[in-house]
């Protein structure tokens, strides 16, 4: 067994943070190797060092026993390393073949030999059952295909090591299964695959070996077949984690959020939210399942008043807020945990006290005789930091320095501290480590049990299934199914998320 990749003593520092601290990471030739770790554990930085996007401060990289210097993404490509990023890096108006051969074009004199390009792509596509049409324009094909294009791009450059970056986040369960078959075929062809995921089930299903990072250090190197999901989680978090959720204690009560015929168009053209009707009752969590980009964000923003609507009504506790400002909607009882916590949910450069006070600064106890006071904001912040166990040096620390999980706790703490009746939670645990996921889920169920209504929008089927009483499936801006969470399977949801309503109706 040879070592395909051997990274020795890699250290990478950023101002104030050591991302990777003397990490040894090695991958055998011809294996699928999972790299795991909580957010901020340093795995992304480690892989971007291998792909030439960052340079290590210390340490050496060996490929097939030979020491190499990877100073740029081009060096990495020449050394046979290909990386598929989560955000695809393709030209939308070019064809698939043109994207694949970009910078390594087969030429015919000074001209691009389009036929040769198409042939080369078709060949790779056939060999690994990647099923793409070389002549299709990139902006005309679905996300799952784009990922295959990225893989072909790497194979066209003859990548012997393929790094996949959270590859299943944008895929339905069926597409994920297809991807796994491709990865297995590539492995059997002698290629090496480094697979980064946070989904334990996928690690167990596909990887041969696992390396776990915590706080920039390797905490475990395991052979998957001889390990268990519990063991891996334990190495990632340093403790045992329980993600099973208590079922609701009472039946849902009256309707608190009602949305009727809501339509939102994208700059007055394509409807991104298309005639959506939904009702959420007190004491229930309603999940919206859907592949990212099917109108979930727009729906949440429209309910909050952050996005103009073309048609429809929104009511909170029988109070029509369709024309109301964000502030009046909040007064009416709406709260919102947005997906983008750096860009919307917080002001990263402002400190903890200010971020936690925002919104609450309009009323007592923060506002007294029309005036604010720093000491009261600090007191308010300390109370929430303690209650939600947020790891922050002091209320005067800028929140942008916090890890993803703690930053999210800032948002959750602030929103749950309102005396609200509805909470819209959008990807509440994305990019958050397991410990924080556990805490946030607990807060959501507590909120529900106190009589709150939760609209949970998540790309994580496991999250939707474990928390929701009812599940709505959103596809291309429409609610295509309204299901009882108890009698729906992941497979059914997968079909519906991919737009296959007929498939389910027929079965």
């Amino acid at each position, binding site marked *: 067994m040879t070592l395909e990749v051997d990274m020795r003593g890699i250290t990478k520092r*950023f101002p*104030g*943070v050591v991302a990777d601290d003397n990490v040894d990471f090695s991958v055998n030739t011809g294996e699928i190797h999972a*790299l*795991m*770790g*909580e*957010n*901020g554990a340093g*795995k*992304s*930085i480690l892989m*971007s060092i291998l792909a030439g996007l960052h340079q290590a401060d210390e340490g050496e990289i060996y490929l097939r026993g030979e020491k190499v210097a990877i100073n740029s993404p081009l060096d990495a490509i020449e050394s046979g390393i290909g990386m598929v990023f*989560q955000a695809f890096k393709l030209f939308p108006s070019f064809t698939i073949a043109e994207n694949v051969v970009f910078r390594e074009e087969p030429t015919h004199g000074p001209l691009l030999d389009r036929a040769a390009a198409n042939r080369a792509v078709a060949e790779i596509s056939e060999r690994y059952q990647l099923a793409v049409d070389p002549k299709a324009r990139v902006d005309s094909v679905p996300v799952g295909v784009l990922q295959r294009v990225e893989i072909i791009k790497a194979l066209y450059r003859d990548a012997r090591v393929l790094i996949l*970056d*959270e590859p299943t*986040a944008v895929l339905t369960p069926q597409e994920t299964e297809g991807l796994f078959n491709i990865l297995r075929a590539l492995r059997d062809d002698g290629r090496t695959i480094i697979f*980064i*995921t*946070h989904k334990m089930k996928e690690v167990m299903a596909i990887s041969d070996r696992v390396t776990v990072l915590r706080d920039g250090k390797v905490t475990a190197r395991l052979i998957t077949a001889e390990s268990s999901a519990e063991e891996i989680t334990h190495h*990632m978090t340093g403790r045992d984690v329980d993600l099973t959720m208590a079922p609701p204690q009472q039946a849902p009560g009256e309707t608190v959020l009602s949305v009727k015929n809501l339509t939102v168009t994208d700059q007055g053209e394509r409807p991104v939210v298309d005639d959506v009707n939904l009702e959420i009752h007190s004491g229930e969590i309603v999940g919206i399942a859907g592949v990212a980009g099917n109108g979930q964000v727009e729906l949440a923003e429209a309910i*909050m008043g*952050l996005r103009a609507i073309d048609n429809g009504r929104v009511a909170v506790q029988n109070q029509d807020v369709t024309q109301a*400002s*964000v*502030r009046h*909607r*909040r007064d009416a009882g709406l709260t*919102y945990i*947005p997906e983008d916590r*750096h*860009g*919307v*949910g*917080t*002001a*990263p*450069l*402002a400190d903890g006290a*200010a971020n936690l*006070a*925002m*919104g609450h*600064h*309009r009323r007592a106890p923060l*506002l007294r005789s*029309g*005036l*604010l*006071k720093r000491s009261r904001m600090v007191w308010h912040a300390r109370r929430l930091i303690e209650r939600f166990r947020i790891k922050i040096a002091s209320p005067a620390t*800028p929140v*942008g*320095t*916090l*890890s*993803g999980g703690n930053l999210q706790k800032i948002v959750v703490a602030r929103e749950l501290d309102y005396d609200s009746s509805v909470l819209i939670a959008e990807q509440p645990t*994305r*990019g*958050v*480590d397991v410990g924080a996921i556990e805490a946030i889920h607990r807060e959501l169920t507590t909120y529900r049990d106190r009589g709150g209504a939760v609209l949970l929008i998540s790309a994580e089927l496991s999250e939707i299934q474990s928390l929701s009483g009812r599940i709505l499936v959103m596809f291309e801006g429409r609610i295509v199914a309204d299901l009882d969470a108890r009698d729906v399977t992941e497979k059914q949801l997968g079909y519906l998320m991919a737009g296959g309503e007929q498939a389910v109706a027929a079965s």
Partner: protein
Amino acid sequence: MVIAFVIGAVFIMIAGSDPISGYQSMLRGSFGSGLGIANTIQRAIPLVGMALAIAVAFRAGVINLGAEGQMILGGLVGVLVVLYVPGPPLLVMALACVAGTAAGALWALIPALFQSWPGVPVLIASLLLNYPARYFSSWMVRFPLKDPESSMVATDSFPAGTQIPLFASPSSGLGQTLLNNLGKDNVLTIVGRTVNWSFAVVALLVVAVMFMNARTRFGFESGMHGFNANFARYSGVHSGRLTAQTMLLSGGIAGLMGVMFAIGAPNNRLMDGQILETNYAWTGLLVALLALYRPSGVLIGGIFFAGIIAGSGAMGRDLSMSPQIAAVIQGIVIILIAFRVQIPVRRRRTSSEVVEARMEHDQAEEEVGRV
């Protein structure tokens, strides 16, 4: 700082003078003598005021680059009131201040409205609105308002008693008392006899803005809006309304500075280009940036830059340099000192760099893998 002065010295030598005596006269002309201090304070008043006007806007994330136009129009309207409104002089003066403030505020409101509809950024509209303000004011002074009796391109002189008075004008009782008791070279005497009451107004404004930022809802919301406008909107702040209010405030302060500069003693008529030539608006922008929009920083930075302006003026006079060369040296010293001040500022900002690194890191992390 040393490098700044060495480079400054080179320019003084290019201008054909001795750098050491140049710096001596610069120091004397700014902080080292009674007259110097008085000169510095005179310049610090509008400079601090303009920096404050810009700082309140920038702190809220509203990039008001039109402070110059707002100041000029405020000054023009104030002068119109003083020249044409009859009544008790003190009342006319007060009315001029109010009218000038309103003019600056309304002129500043235009870019805020343009941003709400059809969506022209405040930065662009406010900058462009400087030109009409500038040339309209110049035209008014050259033609309709020009005093035909005078050889200067200037308005009629203001009616008696409508200027903003000096603290202790030489003819007043207090002025005489100071002169007799402290002597003519005493700092207090000189300052009292040359600095007018707008000093008190600006000092009050600095304190008021400090209070606003720390204790009021508007101050808190505008600070958060400056950090992240999307976050403010999400939290229920009406972004368009806040921008409009901010521009009214910023333009109002700029307009008031314009009036107080135009009708503040010893000025007794408005000359063409009088406000423009001082460049207080743009130097004020620099002060506001270096002060990180904090009123306390604006006060300190404004006085410091006023000292450099006064000092280089004095140097030009003492060494009989042409005013252009003195202005070149002044500009270079300001730039170099801005660099110098920027270094400790950046060090204080390390936390923001960590934030940026963290965000970059998290983003990469989010791209690559979760959990």
